[in-house]
Structure formats: C-alpha cells, structure tokens
C-alpha cells in the first residue's frame, strides 16, 4: 500500500501548491474587492475605511496565512462581496454542478460507446467514416458556439426547453433536470467525441487479440463476441478516459454555466474572480482543483486494485 500512501502525499502537496499559486495570482491581480463593492461611489477615504474593515490593509501574506489557518480548521469564511458563508455557497453550487457534470457524462457515454463500437466493428467502411466523422466534428466545435446553436434551435425556434436558468435539485428535481439538460448536452459534446475515439481504438485493439479470434473460431455469434467479450475488455480504458475528462469538464463549466445562466461552481468561480473576492477565489479554485485531482486519484486506485502490474511499475 506504500504506492497509495505516496499518491496521497503527492495529492496533499499538489493541493498546497495550488493554494500557493492561487495566492500568487491574487498577489498580482490588480484591484481589490473594496473597489468592487464601492464601484463608482468610491472616494479615497471611503475606500480606505472599507479596506481597513475587510482586513485588506494587512500584508497579503498575512491574509493568506489567516485564510489558510481557518481553512485548515474547516472554516472557509464569508464571501467579502456577497456576505454569504463560503461553505454554504460551495455546498449549493457543488450540488448543482455535480448534477450537470454527471448528466453530461451519462449523455457522452450513452452516445460514445455504441458509436465507437459501431465504428470499430465496421472498420474502414462507411459506418466507420460516419462514426469517426461525428467524433471529429465534436472536438472541432467550441462548446460556447455549440451551446449557442442549441439555444437557438431547441429553446428559441422549437421552444422545447428553457433557454437558461437554474433550479435547485434539492427543491425541485424535475425542474432542475430540465434546466440542466441543454447545458449538459453542450458539455457532453466534446467529451462524447473523445470517448467515441477512445472506444473505437480500444475495441480495435481487443478485436485484434487472440481470444476474440478463438471465440469466433469456436463458432460464437459475432454479436455475442462483441458485447460479451470484446466490449467488456475495452470498457476499462474508456472509463479511465471518462474519469480523466471529468476534470476537463469542471474547467469547461465556467464558460458553459455563464452562457446558460446556470448558477453552479463555474459561475461562482467566475463571479469570485470578476469581483476580486479573494477568499472565495481561493475556495472555489481549491475545490475545482481538488475534484480534478481526486478523480485522477480514484482512477489510479481503481487501476491498482484491478491491475496489480501498476504497483510493480
């Protein structure tokens, strides 16, 4: 288990590094939350008074120390501009974004696995061209443009779904799902494209292996071979990539959530940055980075458990 212990230690070190880099960024970012609160109503005296009150006059390193100390004891503090406890904000917004990300993952897998298998089985024929073509198109569209196209067609012209908005999954799940549908489809597109390509190549590799040939030689039906044997072996790398892409998804939500007015983690992070609300910036960036690394860690652990060779290498 020393492998896992080492991974965990690295995880903690990287998280610390992230807070340091975030701190450095806040150090060089011009402006502060006091100017944002006062806007064009700020004069030097009011600004100075507010900075004093918010503790912005202390050296940044001291502010960072305070933040870090409190954060380690589980207190993330209060958002300077919104006056809401950060822990509460994070709780609400993580739930919303998790719903979004999980939905996109489901959509992406549901489309990518059949498409990838279909392409692989019909390698180099028209079906493969179509499948690979869809996948290529998927990674070639910027998600904000694809989101705009969806708003245009599905919400405006067909009037099937709300163009944007947000409802709490805890309060009203059906409505929350409805609001999450378009943004999650938007997020799913490029993920679907990556997973289709991954499924195709994993399937091709498996289909070329001896045991598949043996199965066929033994007279097993081609469909049974594909689904019962080949796919089972191909699914592991696909899930790995899906997991790794979770992190990528958490990065993309910043733009997509803003586009759809979906007030989740990405939106919150963007608001925190735009308002120079440093405690909130620290907290949101830390959470996003932690989620990204945690998924990587979990995948590694699952791999270690399933595949003992990893531990040796």
């Amino acid at each position, binding site marked *: 288990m020393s492998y896992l212990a080492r991974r965990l230690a690295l995880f903690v070190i990287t998280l610390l590094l992230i807070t340091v880099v975030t701190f450095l960024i806040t150090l060089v970012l*011009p*402006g*502060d939350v*006091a*100017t*944002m*609160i*006062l*806007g*064009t*109503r*700020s*004069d*030097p*005296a*009011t*600004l100075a*008074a*507010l900075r*004093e*009150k*918010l503790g912005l006059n202390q050296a940044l390193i001291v502010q960072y120390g305070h933040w870090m100390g409190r954060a380690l004891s589980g207190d993330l503090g209060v958002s300077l*501009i*919104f*006056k*809401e406890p950060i822990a509460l*904000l994070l709780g*609400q917004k993580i739930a919303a974004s998790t719903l979004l990300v999980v939905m996109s993952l489901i959509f992406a897998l549901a489309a990518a696995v059949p498409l990838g298998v279909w392409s692989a089985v019909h390698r180099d024929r028209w079906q493969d061209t179509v499948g690979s073509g869809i996948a290529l198109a998927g990674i070639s569209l910027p998600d904000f443009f694809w989101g705009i196209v969806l708003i245009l067609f599905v*919400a*405006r012209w067909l*009037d099937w779904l*709300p*163009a*944007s*908005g*947000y409802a*709490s999954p805890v309060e009203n799940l059906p409505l929350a799902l409805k609001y999450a549908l378009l943004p999650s489809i938007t997020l799913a597109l490029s993920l679907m494209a990556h997973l289709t390509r991954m499924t195709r190549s994993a399937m091709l590799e498996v289909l070329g292996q001896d045991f598949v040939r043996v199965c066929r030689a033994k007279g097993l039906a081609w469909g049974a071979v594909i689904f019962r044997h080949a796919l089972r072996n191909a699914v592991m790398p696909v899930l790995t990539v899906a997991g790794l892409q979770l992190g990528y998804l958490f990065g993309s939500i910043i733009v997509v959530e803003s586009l759809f*007015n979906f*007030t989740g983690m990405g*939106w*919150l992070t963007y*608001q925190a940055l*735009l*308002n*120079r609300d440093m405690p909130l910036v620290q907290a949101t960036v830390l959470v996003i980075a932690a989620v990204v690394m945690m998924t990587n860690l979990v995948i590694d652990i699952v791999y270690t458990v399933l595949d003992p060779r990893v531990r040796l290498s």
Partner: protein
Amino acid sequence: MKRREFLQTSGLLMGGLAVGGLPGPAAAEDAPRRGGTLIWGHSETTQNLDIHQTGTASTLRLLQNVHDTIVTVDHSFKVLPNVAESFDVSQDLLTYTFRLRPGVKFHTGAAVTSADVVYSFERVKDPKTGAVNFDVFKDVAGIEAPDPGTVIVKMKQPFAPFLARLAELGAGAILPKDSGDIQGKAPVGCGPFKFVSREFGNKVELTGFADYWQGAPYLDGVLSHEVTEETVRLTGLQTGQFHLINDIPMDRVAKVKQDPKLQVLSWFPLCWDFLNFNHAKKPFDDPRVRKALDLMVDKDALMQGALWGQGVVTGSPSFPTSASYDANIKPRKQDFEAAAALLKEAGFGPGQLQFTFKVTTNYPYHVQAAQIMQAWFEQGGVKATTQQLTWADWLSQCWVHRDFEVTMMNFFTLWEPDFLYYTLWNSTGAFNYRNIKDSTIDDLTEKARRSTDPAGRAAIYKQVQQRIQDETHDVILWFRNGTVGARQNVGGLDRLVHPNGSNLMFRNVWLKA
C-alpha cells in the same frame, strides 16, 4: 433592423424630456387589486444586502422595497417628509431637527424611535462600517435624541446637500438598533416588503409588510429571479415566466412595444454617459486636443448606434427634472475640418496622434460606442486602440490609479448637484479620476456647497456646466433610457420608478385578475 423601424425608434424619443418619464400604454387604469405574487426577472445579481455597505444599482433596486428613508424627494427633487413627519433646518445650515412620525413599525414589529435613527446614522458615519455613503456625514458634529420622537443633527460647517442626500437609501434608511450584523444576509427595515430569503445568484423572495406605515402593499409578495442574460430575460417575459422585467434589450424595445400581450415603460434618465480624457497625460491636458476629439463625434449617430435610439443626447449632465439642468448647452456638431485645424494648432498632423481607449465590458454598449468613435477618430487622422477591461480592471486602472488616456463611463442617479459637480469636477473631488484641475470650477463648486440659497446654487451649477463645455473637460454624451417590460396584467406601472430613475417601487404595483 429595417430602416423604417430605425426611424420609428428615433421618433419615439421625442417629447420625453419634459415629464422625465413616458408611461406605457397602461393608461386604462383599473382599480388597484390586492393579492398575488409578482415574479420579476431582475437584470443583475444582488450582492451584499446590507444597505449601508452596498453601492451597486442592482442591489439598491431590490432594497428600495425593504427599507424606507427618513426624508424623500419628489420628481423635481424637492425634499419631503417621510419617516420623519417634519423637519427643521436652521438658517445657518448647522442644525437639523427631525420629528418622527408616530406608528411607523419595523418588520420586527417594534416601533421606529429616535434611538434607531441615531444608530443608523452613527453606523454610516463610523468608518468601521465601510459605508458607501460615509462622506454624507463627514461634516456632522453630533447626532442626538432628546426624546423618542426627535432627532437632532449638528454640523461642524454648512454642507448644503446634507438633507437631500438623506433621501438616498444608503444614507437615510432607518435600521432597527443593533441590527447591523444581520443586515448583509437578512436585511430588516421599515419598508413595504419584508425580506424572506435569497438563494444566491438565483432568486430573492420578499413578502408584503401588513403594518407598513403608508398601508400594506397591493402585492402579497415579490419573487425576483436574477437573470443576467438580456435576451433570456426577454424570452421569459414573452413566454409568461415573468410578470415584469427591467432593462429590455435596447435593440428590441421597438418590437416589444408592438406586442399586444406586453406593455413597455420607458423613461430617462436611467443614467448618463460621458467621454473622458486624462488631463494629467499629454496631450490631453491641451483643451484643443480634447475639443478636436469632441468635434469628431456625431452624438446623435453615436446614440443611435450604441443605444439603438434608447436615449436622449444632452450637453448638461444635471438630472433633467432638476433646477440646475441647462437645456441651452448644446453638444458640438461633428466637424472634421475644425477638428483637423485644432489638432494642427496643437502640433498634430494627420496620423500623429495615437492613444489607447479603455472601455469596460461591464457596459457592452460602451464597447459598441468605442468602436464607432474609433472609426471617426480614424477618419479624423487619429489612431485609437481599444482595450476592453473587466469591471474590476476598469475600476482599478481608470478610477483608482487613474492610468488611462481616454475612456468613458456612466453614472446612475447623481441627482444631487453638489454630489454631481463637486465630486466629479472639483480638483479635490472624490470622483475626479480624470485629474481635472480648473480653478474656476473649484471656486464655483466650493461656493455652491456652502450656499444657503437654492436658486443661487442652481445658477452657479449652470456656470460650471458651461465651463465644462467650453474647456471640453469631458464630452457629455447622453441620458440613457430605463425600460421595464411587463405583462398586460400588471397595474400601476406609471408609478413604479423612483424619482432617482433607477430604483423600482413595487408597493405601487398590483396584479390584475
């Protein structure tokens, strides 16, 4: 937009100036009806809900309905009694006596007393509060409460705008004693609606306050959905998701007006905009250069281009219904030859003047305006490079550090003339981010501030405006219209907008059956 529509839009503008407001086609006034919750599609995210600590127009727009001020103003900005049923101002402007109206209650059920007023005023005055309107109380020597119904404010020196500034929520709102700590999350006051809850970034719920001193509002409550994307907000109104939205997309106002299911309220000014030069950077210290750039801008075309006709070009930044507004100051007409001559005099041939034009993406129409002006500057042989800045960057670079050459900005609700002219154009003014140093303006604004004669003050401010125009300290561009769109079943729209042109008063509104 087709040319015909374009002309129609411009036609609609005329005639709004005198009233300062154009009620929509809600003229068929049914009798007000009680009951119902109004669903409002609000254009912005509300921030800190503490009325003393928040300066953003969006949050004030909401809190207008939760709080009430000690005095208020009418549309001509005459100060009127409000929570104080009467007030006396001594001749020397050094003593203000407020007598509180009996029977005014807070949402907590407690009566409003002089102790609450003293607490509220002291809280704004205390630098530790970080109050936005901190400066209003800077000449105050002491605040006393001789009995539960009387408050006396003593000044160190006359500060003419004091009483009028107390009509602003951020300075004059009355909070229950010792409620400061909870105001940021759960504001409580003596206004017509009680705050119920907020789901951050998403919605705010208000419920009618039955014991409001002017009588319970018609509405049972107001549910505000925060929808920042403007086309989405409009779609929500059109599909019936919202009863009312503020800020109709400017290019869509004409179209929405034709929708039989909807009514449009438009008024001006919501705010006014101006083009700025940094007087501390060469060559913008030279009035000839500033005037030359002014001469390259066709204000009417710019307003049509950037605001889609939803504004009124002006040369005076004074609130149009206020005494100091001067309709005689006319914006300069576009004249490239005169501009070239001035530039040549100042030592710049064609192509020799170059500068960076900073605009903030916080106001997308500023980005449009900058691009249009840039094209004219180019035509006039001047090369401008645009930089789009986020709001935080604009505030930090242009406002606080005064690091810019040319920029533009707008202001909401600076209807108090001292607040407007002293802070923006006096060389020591708090908002003088353009580094303007003009001793004539300094003398005039200082004189007006200490003057006890209202008519004399207005005359002085007209001189100030003329000076700004003559020296082209800034280029005043326009008053921008405010708009509210509503379903036909919303009544009382014509009394929705506060005299300050920005806040919305939902207690005057009802839902028809």
